[in-house]
Every structure is written in C-alpha cells, then in structure tokens.
C-alpha cells in the first residue's frame, strides 16, 4: 500500500486480484467441486460488498468472520438440521444401506444410535479408494452392527435393506444428484426393490448446472490407484501407458436421475428431488 489514503478501500479491488492465482492453483491441483465453486462465489461477493469506510484490517476481519460464518451456518448447523430430520426417519428394526464414507451420513447414524434407535447398517464400498472401511470402523466403534460388501453384491443384499441413505456432492438444477461414482447404481437397484432412497444435501452444494449423464462433467482421479488394489503384476494392465489400446479411467462422480430418489433432505426442508432448485429461488 502506498500511503495513508491507500489503507482504505483497497481491499475491494486488490484482494480479488490477489486471490485469483490462489484459486487457479487450487484448480490445478484438483478440479474444483461444486461446493468449492459456490463458496468462492460467496466470498468474492463478500469482498465486493465490503464497505469502503472500513480500514484494511477491519475489512479483513470482517471477511474472516464471513468465512467462519459460512462454515458455521452452511456446513456445521446445516449438518445438524439435516441430521435431525434424517434421524426422525430411522425406525427400530431398520437395515440402512450407506455408500462409502460421508461425514454427514456417519453423523446421522451416530446420532440415531445416541437416541437409542435399534438398527443395522450395510456398508457398500467400491474400489479404488475403499473409504467404506473407515465408515465401518467408525460405526462398529459406536456399537452399531455393520455388514460390509463391495458394490458388486449390491443386488444380492438389497432385498434385506429397508432404507438407503446417501450423501451427495451436488444437486443439479434439473434434479439430478451428483454423487460418488456408484451412487446411481445403488439408486437403480434400490428402486427395483421399492426401497426408499434418502439423499442428504446441504444447500451450499446446489448448482445451477443442468446435466443428464455422467460424461458431460466429471473428474478423473489418478488411474494408477486402480492398479494398487489389484495384484497387478500382469504387465498388460500395469503397462497401460505404453499400450495404445488401453486406457484406465477412474471417474469420481456420477449422476442419479430424480426418479430414483425418494426424498432430498436439506437444512431448509425435506423435498422431492425436482423441487430442490425451487428453494434456491
């Protein structure tokens, strides 16, 4: 800053410019998720809204407070609100299916256990990251009876399941749910058995994007991690980079159509999938 006058009002113009390289660095490390994009939009808006009467330090404090507030309202408290509504749907004798690991879903199940509900959990997991193992550990530590299967056995176990509880990474404007790859499969199998599919999604994950398949917008994760869980001494697969005919595709997301989802629980309300974007209006 160049002088006393420059201490005031510079935040608005300079901070956005200063943050740009940070955002693009993050985007280069890993593609931005919908929730990150929404937060960045929010923070940019807050920066432009800072009053020109505040000194730089005061403005910075205000912005930091906004960040904290965003986390507190949209993530922490929203999680609690969703958890309350979701726990009300869990009844004694339920067999609840969950997919991989989600903080929100684990929070819901642990809360239900705290409220002395008697239920069992079926943890469905898939390669390559196998995060479901951690889910299982958390749940058994809390004393909740768990079963663990790979997604291949989903059709076999689905008849015993009474409810499916899924987390999501985003909710699109046309009602499609963006979730970890494999979610759509679970939704489809559940709907075949008429099992209710409950999706939990905080409103900061809502997106204006419209998408009907998983190819239009997706993220590719490290393909070599797909090899790690195989005993891939087989040179055909391990040497995939040299072979012109082989590609390893490690998709991160997939989209679940609204017809397969029974209900979306957000902190504002419990809604059918198609009405979720109405809440944003």
């Amino acid at each position, binding site marked *: 800053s160049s002088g006393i006058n420059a201490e005031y009002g510079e935040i608005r113009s300079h901070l956005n410019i200063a943050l740009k390289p940070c955002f693009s660095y993050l985007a280069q490390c890993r593609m931005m998720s919908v929730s990150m994009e929404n937060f960045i939009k929010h923070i940019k808006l807050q920066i432009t809204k800072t009053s020109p009467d505040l000194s730089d330090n005061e403005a910075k404090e205000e912005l930091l407070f906004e960040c904290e507030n965003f986390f507190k309202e949209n993530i922490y408290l929203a999680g609690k609100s969703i958890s309350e509504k979701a726990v009300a749907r869990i009844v004694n004798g339920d067999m609840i299916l969950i997919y991989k690991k989600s903080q929100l879903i684990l929070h819901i199940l642990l809360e239900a256990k705290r409220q002395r509900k008697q239920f069992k959990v079926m943890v469905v997991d898939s390669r390559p990251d196998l995060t479901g193992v951690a889910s299982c550990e958390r749940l058994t530590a809390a004393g909740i009876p768990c079963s663990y299967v790979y997604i291949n056995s989903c059709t076999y176990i689905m008849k015993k399941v009474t409810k499916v509880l899924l987390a999501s990474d985003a909710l699109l404007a046309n009602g499609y749910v963006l979730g970890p790859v494999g979610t759509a499969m679970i939704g489809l199998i559940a709907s075949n058995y008429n099992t209710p599919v409950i999706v939990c999604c905080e409103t900061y994950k809502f997106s204006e994007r419209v998408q009907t398949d998983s190819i239009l917008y997706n993220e590719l994760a490290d393909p070599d991690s797909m090899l790690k869980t195989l005993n891939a001494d087989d040179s055909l697969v391990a040497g995939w980079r040299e072979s012109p005919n082989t590609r390893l595709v490690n998709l991160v997301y997939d989209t679940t159509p609204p017809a397969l989802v029974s209900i979306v629980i957000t902190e504002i309300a419990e809604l059918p999938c198609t*009405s979720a974007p109405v809440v944003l209006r």
Partner: protein
Amino acid sequence: AVVSTQSTGELSRQLKATAGTSTTSVVSGCDLFVRFITLSRGQKGPSSDVDILECKGFDPVRKFLVERGNLFMNRLKDSRRKIAQLAYPFITDGVTVLTVNISRVVLEILTKAHEKSKKFNVLVTQSEEGPYMVNQLNGRGIQATQILDASIGFVMERVSFVLVGAVGVVENGGLINKLGTYPVAVMARSLNKPFYVAVESFKFYRNYPLSQLDLPNDDKYQDPQQKGHPEVDFTPPKYINKLFSDLGVLTPSAVSDELIKLYI
C-alpha cells in the same frame, strides 16, 4: 402475541373430536388459518399506531380474528366451485369416469359437467360410502353404477379416466385418500388410464411419507386402539397424472413448489 403455533395442535385435536372427520385436512387447514392470521400483522388496531394483534384489550382482536376466520372460511367454501369450473372441461361426451368412495369435490365437478349437458357415466367403487355417492349422483340425474372394489381390474379397460377426491396431499404430490385408492391408481397406471385428483389447496399437507406405514396413526385409525382396517391409504406421486385444485391444474411436482411458496 395472541396466537401461538402450539394452539393449532390443540385446535385440531378439539375439532377432530367434534367433527369426526379425518385429521389430515383439519390439521393442514388449521396450519393455514394460523398463517392467515399471523401474516396479517400489517393490520392496524383502533388506535391506529399499534398492530392489531399487539393492542391491549381482547375485543378488537377477537372481532378481527372472527372477521379473518369468516374470510378464510368463505375462500375455502369457494374453492370447490373453482375446482369444478376448472375440471369439468375434462369430461367430454361419452366418457366413463371411475371414482372411489365419496367425495364432495368430485360430486360438484360431475354435477357441473352434467349441467353443461355432457353425456357421461360414472362408476363408483363400493368401499364404505359408495352407495351414498351413487344415490347423490342418480339424484342429480347422472348415470352412476356401483361396482365392487374387487372388480376394478375387470372394469378398468372400459374406463376413460379415474377422478378421485382427497383427504390430503403430501409434499411430494402423493395422495392420501380413502382406503382403496392406491390399488385403483396402480391399476389405472398399468392400463395407461389417466388418474386425476380433485383437491382443495388447504389440504396440501406438510408431511412426506415414504411408505404406507409412514402415515401418522392418527390419520389412519379412528379409534385410539388402532385395531381393524386403516381409513386411508397413500398413493405415491408417480401414479397421479394431474391434480385439479383452486390454485390451478397442477402436476404432483408442482405441489411441492406451492407448499414451499407458502411455508418457506
């Protein structure tokens, strides 16, 4: 403030005891009434600088509440007429309408269509009060036949569309209606017959059942022991084509939009 939201529960319980009708419509009607009152906070009292619900003395407030109550009731009574106005064009000459049990809204729609000289006939499932519905229709000059609930499979191929009333409509557009509606809906979907619901908007209920068992027991059973058959069943929204309400002709997903507009 005079009004508290806890009073709706008490109010609806008392009303249920006196009216003997199902609770869903009563509860949602009461919820709406409370909002109708509390959203009128802009109104000023006789001393004109104090909000009517905050001013001292109960008399002006009571007068105000009664006025609003009457206005509310008149709007509700009028909704049946509005629905009939909207729905009767769907009944064309030569159609066969299937309806379940008794519904005053459906009765009004069919009467209106008859007044407009449409030639149609009605099949009414027996259920509990089917005979009463048939008498009412025949009394107004509409050709109505009673059918056994077991014969809906048999008659469905002859039916042009199904028109039922409602006890309540839930957040996802699903229908709570007299027992026997769900099988008719499934049968209609199976033979690709349109399934229409005629319902006043005050019956849009803030509840989201995912299965038959999710319906609150109060709605299902009259007596507290909960023995015998439930009074109502739940029809998921995918079986419903359109809802005729005083807010217009809606699809099941639009019901959620309307509820959000009202309550959020």
